[in-house]
């Protein structure tokens, strides 16, 4: 069983490195999709199959596809590695090194002390499936969180539309309210036409 963990985790590391180092942005997105798939396998290993499937549906099916849409829509030049940011890169690399060391230290010290968490609220039971157990608490104990996240998604939707809507020039639209609210004074003007003079020379408003 452990082998699967090592397999999937090494693949995940490799593909994430591929995400950040690919030249072609489409390749980047594809590597990202591969990362997601591997992570989903990890989740299944952890016994959270609902989460795994949800990841594939939402991340891969929606977010990555969205990325692909945008990448292909925008004309992205294949960017070169800018040499003038070399100093930056060295500092960045050191930073990462430090970060990784920090993480490992923290993990080693925290998890080796065998501290136990005392609250065991919602136990995962072996009899119920993951989906069942999540559903049991999501709509009862965590209802507010659920609703709020729905609101956030609504906000995102509205935000996207607001950001990207464009008015097209030259398009005539009907405004029914304006049409109904016409008054006589702005539509009709009654002009007395003089006899033997005719309609020439009348100034229309």
């Amino acid at each position, binding site marked *: 069983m452990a082998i699967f963990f090592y397999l999937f985790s090494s693949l995940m590391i490799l593909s994430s490195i591929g995400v950040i180092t690919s030249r072609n942005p489409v390749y980047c997105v594809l590597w990202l999709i591969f990362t997601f798939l591997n992570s989903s396998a990890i989740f299944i290993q952890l016994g959270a199959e609902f989460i795994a499937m949800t990841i594939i549906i939402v991340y891969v099916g929606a977010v990555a596809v969205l990325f692909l849409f945008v990448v292909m829509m925008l004309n992205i030049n294949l960017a070169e590695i800018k040499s003038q940011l070399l100093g930056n890169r060295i500092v960045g690399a050191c930073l990462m090194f430090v970060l*990784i060391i920090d993480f490992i230290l923290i993990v080693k010290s925290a998890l080796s002390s065998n501290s136990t968490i005392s609250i065991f609220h919602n136990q995962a039971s072996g009899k119920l499936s993951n989906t069942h157990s999540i559903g049991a608490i999501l709509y009862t104990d965590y209802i507010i969180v659920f609703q709020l996240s729905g609101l956030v998604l609504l906000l995102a939707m509205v935000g996207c539309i607001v950001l990207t809507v464009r008015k097209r020039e030259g398009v005539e639209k009907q405004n029914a309210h304006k049409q109904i609210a016409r008054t006589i004074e702005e539509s009709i003007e009654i002009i007395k036409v003089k006899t033997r003079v005719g309609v020439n020379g009348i100034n229309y408003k």
Partner: protein
Amino acid sequence: MESIISNVTLEHYVILSCCLFSIGMCGLLLNKGNVINILMSIELMLLAANINFVAFSSYYNELTGQIASIIILAIAAAEAAIGLAIIVNFYRACGTISIEKINKLKG
């Protein structure tokens, strides 16, 4: 061999998550001048957080972590959407999405 292929403990998953996070941060800092790359690195970091949550939830038999994971999923999706909308807008306005040209916040 047995010492290498040992039992997979919580430590392993957390270290995996940390590595993933640092790789995402790497992508953020050592980027190639593309904004899309930055967004993808952010997705990686969120994924790392996800794994962390689910790992802890699984090893301590606590379902709150998985709920958190679902929420993170929703938030990540929303944030990716809005980020991309901004990028599309910016591309329309400035014709390029190179990082060095996006400096309208200069002050």
